[in-house]
Structures are given as C-alpha cells and as structure tokens.
C-alpha cells in the first residue's frame, strides 16, 4: 500500500488520508450507500432493477464482492467522480445519502448506473 506522505504531518491535524482503497472497497462503498437506507433504496430500486436483497444483488451483479475486483469500464476515476454526490452527508457510510442524491447519481452518470444495473458498456 502507498503511504500518503504528501500530507504528513500538518494536514493530519484535521483530515489526513490513509492509503488508496482497493477498487473492490470503493465499489462496495457505493453499494452500501445505495442500499443502506430505505430512502435511497426506494429511489434506485426500479432503475437498478433490484430485488428484495439490494446489497447481495448489486455485489453479485458487479462482481466486487471479490477482493481482486478491478474497475475497467467505467474506470475507477469515473466511479469516484460520480460517487461524490453520495458523500454530501459525510465520508462515513453511517450517513446514507438522501433520495435526491441517489437519483442524481444515476441520472448524472448513466454509464456508472449501467454498470450497477448489470448492462454491458
């Protein structure tokens, strides 16, 4: 893992970052955020064609339950860019996004939405 030396030590006073999270972790973070709350789930369930088991369906559909998972299309950078709207309430997954943010995630990034819908790019 690469250590983020560029922010050490002063930035650590407030918000220092750790190493890069693997693609699988980033993917699972998005899945958790979309499925964690009923509000977000209700907004994305139809568009993502989800069943009753939101997390299990998305993890299986994207393949990111495997720790060796890596983004190809869309790329990691694209997923991270689209994920930003889901972070409006904080970095931690303890703070799930609102319905509006989840909707903007899907409508603003159709390619990423397609990835989570299971359709081929």
């Amino acid at each position, binding site marked *: 893992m690469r250590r983020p030396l560029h922010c050490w030590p002063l930035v*650590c006073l407030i*918000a*220092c970052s*750790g*190493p*890069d*999270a693997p693609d699988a972790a980033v993917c699972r*973070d998005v899945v958790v955020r979309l499925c964690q709350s009923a509000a977000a789930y209700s907004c994305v369930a139809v568009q993502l064609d989800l069943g009753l088991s939101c997390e299990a369906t998305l993890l299986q559909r994207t393949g990111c339950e495997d720790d060796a998972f890596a983004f190809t299309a869309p790329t990691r950078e694209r997923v*991270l860019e689209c994920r930003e709207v889901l972070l409006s309430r904080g*970095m931690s997954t303890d703070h799930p996004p609102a319905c509006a943010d989840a909707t903007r995630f899907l409508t603003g990034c159709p390619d990423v939405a397609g990835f989570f819908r299971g359709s081929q790019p």
Partner: protein
Amino acid sequence: MKRLWAAVLMMAVGCAPLDVERRTERGPLLRTWSQEKALNERIPFATTQVQWPRLTLAFSSSDICRTEQHGEYAEDIISMHGNTGAAAEVSSGGVLAVLGGTLLVGRSLFSDTPNRSAIDEQGRYGASSRDVATGWGLGLLIVGVPAVVAGIVQVSRSGETRETRKRAELLSLREVPCEPKRVDGVVELAGGPGPQPPPRLTLNGALVLTADEIQRLSFSGLALDGTPVTLEEEDLDRLETFRTCATLLATPVDPQALAGEARSRPDRLRMKRELARGCTTLPGAPAQPLLEAIEGALGSTAL
C-alpha cells in the same frame, strides 16, 4: 527544513514584547560652579546722596552682569523590564508541548491501520490513529515550544537595570549692574502731573537739586539723553523721602497750630509724625524741632 523551523522559532521568540517602565531618581549633588558673563547691554543708572538741603543724583552707565549658579547631580535611570503574561505563556506552552511530545513519543501505541470505515472523494481510506496522533503531536509542539521558549526568554530578560548619568541644572540666576562708568548728559525730569521742568545738564556725572527746587518740580521719572534711568529701590525711597521732607520742613513749626490739629485731626498728625521721623534719616535735615513739637501736641492731647 531545519533552517525554516529555526527561523520560525527565532521570529516567535525575538518578537516577544517586553514592557519597560522607566523612572528617574536624583542622586547627590556632585559639584557646583558659577558662570558670569556681561550681556553688553549698557543702561543708565542713578544713585542718590543727600546732604540737606541738597540732593545729588549721580549718573552712571552700567552693563548687566548675569551670574548663573549651576549644580551637577548624579541621576539614576532605573528601567524595569517585565511581562505579566510571560509566566502564563510558559505554563500554557508547557502544557501544549508536553501533550504534543507525549503524543509523539507514544504514537506507536496507536493503531497503524487505516480507517476503513470511510473512503474520501479521492478513493483513499481515512488516516490511521497513529498518523492523526503524530499530526496533533507535531502541531501542539509547534505551538507549545516557541511559547515556552519565548516565555522563558521574557522571564530571564525581566528585571531591573540601572544607568547612572550626570545632569547639570541651573540653580539660580542673578542679574546685577556691573562695570559702572560715570556719564554726563541731558537729564529730563518727566512724568509729573504739572508742566514738564526744563532739561538740565549734568556736571561731572551729577545733578544737584535743592529742597526748594524739588518742591516746585513735578516729576516721577528720570531720563538721561532720552533713555529712562533706573534707580534701585533704596535710591527711589531716598528721593521720595527728600521730596516729602522738602515740603514738610518748608513750613515753620507752629506749636499752637499743631495742638489744634492734634485735637481736630489726630490721625493726620500721627501720620505727619511718621513722616517727620523719616526726615531724621536724611543727613543734615532739621526735622528734630518739628518732631518734638508734634510729639508735644499729641502728648498734651492724650493728657
């Protein structure tokens, strides 16, 4: 990097202000000396001499000599350096530095595992507890150490310094006529209520006035060649006494009139008695008969 930290530390310490309170204490008198100098401003003076029935005004031109008395003192300038916030600065800085140092020394006790519960916008995990502790430790040291050093420097620089210097002071100033020279000229007797008397020439620096003349002359000041003449207080008194006695002694002594005046206006007669006593101070003035007659009139009234 080390130079940068050193510069920051120097600025933090060097810019620490110190309150300075100065007071001056006067020491003992070391020496005194006099300084004399002429002002080169010659002005006419006159002195008076009486030998009844004549008054002699002697004129002279004198310079003004200024005599300055100086003293030299030892003077202590005491400067009190201090800063009321220095102790608080050492205390608070020390607490911060100790806290920061403890965090740095004990950083290995914190977990080096990244915070996997959060992934930021760039896709990175949160910092490990060890990194956060290291950052806070360094930050507290950066704030605390300069505060401690600055506080210690301020405390060490506080105290009292004493500087002694000599100070000269003018103790007294006296201006007196000096280097008199006899002068001749035209004397004007001016300032009286009546017509101005004609000017008179001095002879050998003197002007003689008789008692008869001075009765008729009306003047309050003297001028020599147009320049006002200065008379010292003693000479002015003598001139006024001579003028008063010239009038007082011109009238023959009449005991009966004095007795009548003693009955009708005793206060006025008592005042006349004082004037007659003043006339006895003039050399040659025949004031004694008048004085005795007044005493006699007042004495008979009292009986």
